[in-house]
């Protein structure tokens, strides 16, 4: 084996444009999925604490099914099942179509974790806060939106940061969903140049560039937004 290829960083330079394009795809997947997962997760958390038993049951059922299904299966279901087999497409342009199916799978999956993090946050808000909200005539949804959730969110900023980091890394699984992001690009380069350590290091560094600041930002935010009780 020629050891020089093991320490050859030149493929990273040669394919720099493709690598950047791959990470840009990763970022687009992460940001869109994060926003949608946050929205869906909040709705699910609201359902799980709702006074209506049907809503509570539906929220719990969703979380337990989705959380216990491997993400790979969720994404295969989206790309191969719903898109290819059942011909449910977002767009005639394959890359657009598979992007949105990947976003759908990622956000549906991540929402279950957002929901559970938020629910633990809701449990830290004292019952008295909700009682005081109801006592001035706020409806259930108003109490949740104006009093309980804002406090719950602030206590779970750190765990939400972890979920976002996990989501960033989970986008690598989109490789099974026919959409080209950074991990797919890395696999392509392994095929083109051979599986060398420098390529691996380059991509690992790329993911850290995305996730480390995310972690620091959420840590800072959690401190800043803490509610004094």
């Amino acid at each position, binding site marked *: 084996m020629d050891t020089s290829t093991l320490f050859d960083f030149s493929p990273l330079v040669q394919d720099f444009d493709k690598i950047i394009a791959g990470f840009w795809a990763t970022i687009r997947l992460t940001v869109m999925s994060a926003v949608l997962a946050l929205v869906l997760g909040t709705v699910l958390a609201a359902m799980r604490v709702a*006074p209506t038993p049907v809503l509570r049951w539906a929220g719990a059922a969703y979380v337990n099914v989705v959380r216990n299904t491997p993400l790979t299966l969720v994404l295969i279901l989206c790309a191969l099942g719903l898109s290819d087999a059942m011909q449910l497409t977002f767009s005639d342009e394959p890359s657009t179509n598979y992007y949105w199916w990947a976003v759908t799978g990622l956000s549906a999956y991540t929402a279950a974790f957002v929901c559970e993090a938020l629910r633990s946050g809701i449990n830290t808000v*004292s019952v*008295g*806060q909700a*009682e*005081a*909200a*109801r*006592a*001035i*005539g*706020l*409806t259930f949804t*108003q109490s949740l939106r*104006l*009093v309980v959730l*804002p*406090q719950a969110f*602030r206590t779970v900023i750190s765990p939400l940061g972890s979920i976002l980091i996990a989501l960033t890394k989970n986008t690598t699984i989109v490789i099974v969903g026919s959409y080209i992001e950074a991990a797919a690009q890395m696999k392509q380069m392994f095929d083109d140049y051979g599986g060398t350590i420098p390529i691996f290091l380059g991509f690992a560094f790329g993911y850290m560039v995305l996730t480390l600041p995310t972690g620091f930002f959420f840590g800072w935010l959690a401190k800043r937004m803490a*509610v*004094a*009780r």
Partner: protein
Amino acid sequence: MTENGDATPLVKLENVNKHFGALHVLKDINLTVSRGEVLVVIGPSGGGKSTLCRTVNRLETIDGGRIVFDGQPLPDEGRGLARLRADVGMVFQSFNLFAHKTIRENVTLGPIRVRRKSREEADRRAMELLERVGIAAQADKYPAQLSGGQQQRVAIARALAMDPKMILFDEPTSALDPEMVQEVLDVMVSLAREGMTMMVVTHEMGFARRAANRVVFMADGQVVEENSPDEFFGAPRTDRAKDFLSKILTH
């Protein structure tokens, strides 16, 4: 007792019963509160006083009997219940100010979101009320920055901001340091003098003597005695009340 001449009681409890599991906490309670009346509920701990107070705005549901507020039976759930609660102020033992909102926002939240007042109008009224309870200078602080007595006075201002038909006080001074009790009681006495309808669960016998129109003595989930403060404190009729008063008034 009825200052505006309206003879129908504001609150009427008829044969109200409530259980917590096997515990029968409210036993056939019949009670009325007239408009403008200050009703003080006293009695030993665990006797059902707080539960009784909380049934009036349905923070506690009841198992039997009925409660009529301002001529209407209490709604079960939903918007009707929210509307009723907007008309019934509540002051809690543990203040329960919204921890993530400033003092001013605590007082304006209900008027803006429930009464649909403009922010300017709600702000103006909030500052008047905070002025009245002596906290105006702290309007932009957060609840955790205030003392217990100050927080409880803000809680009273928050209740007043809704222009309620009555205010429920659930042991408003029990969580306070002794030196802060008086500042809260002073605000309550002045409200009573102005004719606010109040139902007050308290251990403050001084307040009961000074401000109550009627005293209800509760023990073991029942109304044991109901009388004017002078007669109740001067000549309690039941042994249970005599026993209770001897325990709290001797030291």
